[in-house]
């Protein structure tokens, strides 16, 4: 049986630049895949590519394939794509503060999923909205429906965005850093809520994050992106036990632990290069402590590693 979502060798082009290249991973029902990397590594762009929303920023998938439940998405027409969006593939955006239309009531913004994708009347759609809000344990759902986004807290708004995603009864949810804009106390709540929903309903979740701690807590598998390329992808336990790519090793070393002493919190020196300044060879080599001559000239191929793949000339952990 093939996976629900298979991204293979995907390349994204925006005008003259190619910010994403050779991206590949699979995601199945009931599974949570963490897509990690620093800012600028191409995580959000990958999400946009799967949603078919690259044209909004003038981009396109220029090579490779995205298969969703047997359908090739890269050649799908806009109308057919539109019927997937919000229904079979739902999206949860990064900043709940700006994700909702400030001029429309909360109820109307959730109702539209029912009227648009399920042909419901307004009254039916509202009943369904109240149902979904109640399932998400949102108190006083009817009052919330009548209010406007500026009257709600950030955590509540993100719950509404999640409700909007769930209202479509999707097979796949793409959540782009769903908690970065929230208070730390609310972050854990939202992540657990999402993880629970996915497990309960057998949906697939593509969780975009830069927080390896979150990944360790709730993901089944991880895909690590660096500067628009896939660095490493593997199941969660083998990856954390034996990270093969030096970048993955560095990311894991950055997670604060109980035994981390004050002032010893690790970081990765340098920054992700801009799209226009990708170095030749392995794109991580300027920051890699193990870089050799070949790393500076030759792009590493993806090679198998236990329960996954890694793109490195000298995969660890032996040399880590």
């Amino acid at each position, binding site marked *: 049986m093939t996976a629900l979502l298979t991204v293979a060798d995907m390349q994204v082009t925006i005008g003259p630049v190619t910010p994403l290249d050779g991206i590949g991973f699979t995601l199945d029902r009931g599974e949570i895949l963490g897509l990690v990397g620093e800012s600028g590594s191409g995580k959000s762009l990958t999400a946009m590519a799967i949603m078919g929303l690259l044209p909004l920023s003038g981009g396109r998938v220029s090579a490779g394939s995205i298969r969703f439940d047997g359908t090739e998405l890269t050649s799908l027409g806009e109308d057919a794509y539109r*019927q997937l969006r919000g229904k079979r593939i739902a999206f949860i955006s990064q900043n709940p503060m700006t994700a909702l*239309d400030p001029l429309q009531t909360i109820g109307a913004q959730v109702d539209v999923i029912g009227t648009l994708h399920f042909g419901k009347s307004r009254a039916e759609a509202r009943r369904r909205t109240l149902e979904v809000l109640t399932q998400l344990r949102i108190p006083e759902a009817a009052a919330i429906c009548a209010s406007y986004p500026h009257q709600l807290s950030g955590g509540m708004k993100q719950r509404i965005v999640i409700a909007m995603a769930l209202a479509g009864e999707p097979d796949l949810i793409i959540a782009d850093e769903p908690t970065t804009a929230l208070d730390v106390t609310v972050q854990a709540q939202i992540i657990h809520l999402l993880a629970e929903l996915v497990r309960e309903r057998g949906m697939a979740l593509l969780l975009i994050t830069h927080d390896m701690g979150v990944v360790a807590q709730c993901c089944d598998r991880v895909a690590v992106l660096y500067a628009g390329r896939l660095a490493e992808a593997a199941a969660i336990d083998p990856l954390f036990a034996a990270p093969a790519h030096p970048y993955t090793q560095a990311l894991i070393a950055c997670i604060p632990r109980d035994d981390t002493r004050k002032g010893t919190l690790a970081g990765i020196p340098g920054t992700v290069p801009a799209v226009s300044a990708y170095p030749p060879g392995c794109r991580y080599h300027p920051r890699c402590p193990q870089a050799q001559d070949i790393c500076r000239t030759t792009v590493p191929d993806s090679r198998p590693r236990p329960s996954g793949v890694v793109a490195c000339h000298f995969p660890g952990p032996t040399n880590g």
Partner: protein
Amino acid sequence: MIGYAVRRLLMLVPVFLAVSVVIFLILHLIPGDPIDNLIRIGSSPAQREIIAQRYGLDRSLPEQYFIWLGNVLRGDLGTAIVGQRPVSTMILQALPYSLALGGAALLFSASLGILLGVIAAWKRDGWADQLIMGGVLLGSTMPTFWLGLLMILLFSVHLGWFPVSGARNWQSLVLPVLTIGLAGTALVARVTRVAMIEAQQRDFVMLLHAKGLPRWRIHLGHVLRHALTAVVTILALRIGWILGGAVTVEVVFARPGLGTLLIKALNQHDYPVVQASLLMLAMAVMLGTLLGDLIQAALDPRVRTAMS
């Protein structure tokens, strides 16, 4: 919402008082003595004194102001120095013409301007956008009196479609409305386009796409509504401008109206008429702003929350 309207209306009271002081004083600061226009050359100082007394011009300025304000509040705008008619009658005769012209011009610029702005934003950088924006540039740089003359030349003199001047029927309204309205249309189209393009880049629009809404629904149901809050502000500011700015157009087309009344009264140093017409124009600006704020509150729940 009603409480908000009442509060906004009360806020206009001090503004009205301040405006009335300015209008009253301006006329006493400009050179020229109205009494000179009322008496024959060679009249004695005693005759001069009688005239000054009759119009209250012998009293102190504050006294004159409060008498004038009291009368205005009772609806008595005084008697015109030239012609000796009640000013309120003159204003009431001129007002319908100004309101018809201003209202029609506003409606014309709002509807056509928003339509053009929406099309330009939808077809951004396409040929339709460039055509509309080219027209907007032309429309907003052409002086109204010049545009009016050109229109008279083409539509009245050459084609004979519309009358050259006057205000007898609806046909006589067409050219003045076009003349005033085109500049407004250009302004509204430009503001609508920019506001829509700006709103399109907001985060929530991306989520609307992600929810699977068709592009036209996102544009007309969400983006346009955001753009309208900016357009309403511009239109509200324009209400006063259109009534006052119609002066040149009223002159070009020889139409009766507040503008014509004001110009004539200024030339004749007819204080009561000038004061009354200025007051009308100032009130139009104030009520226009109020109307704009109320529409704004109806469009944007955040404004309602901030005001309550």
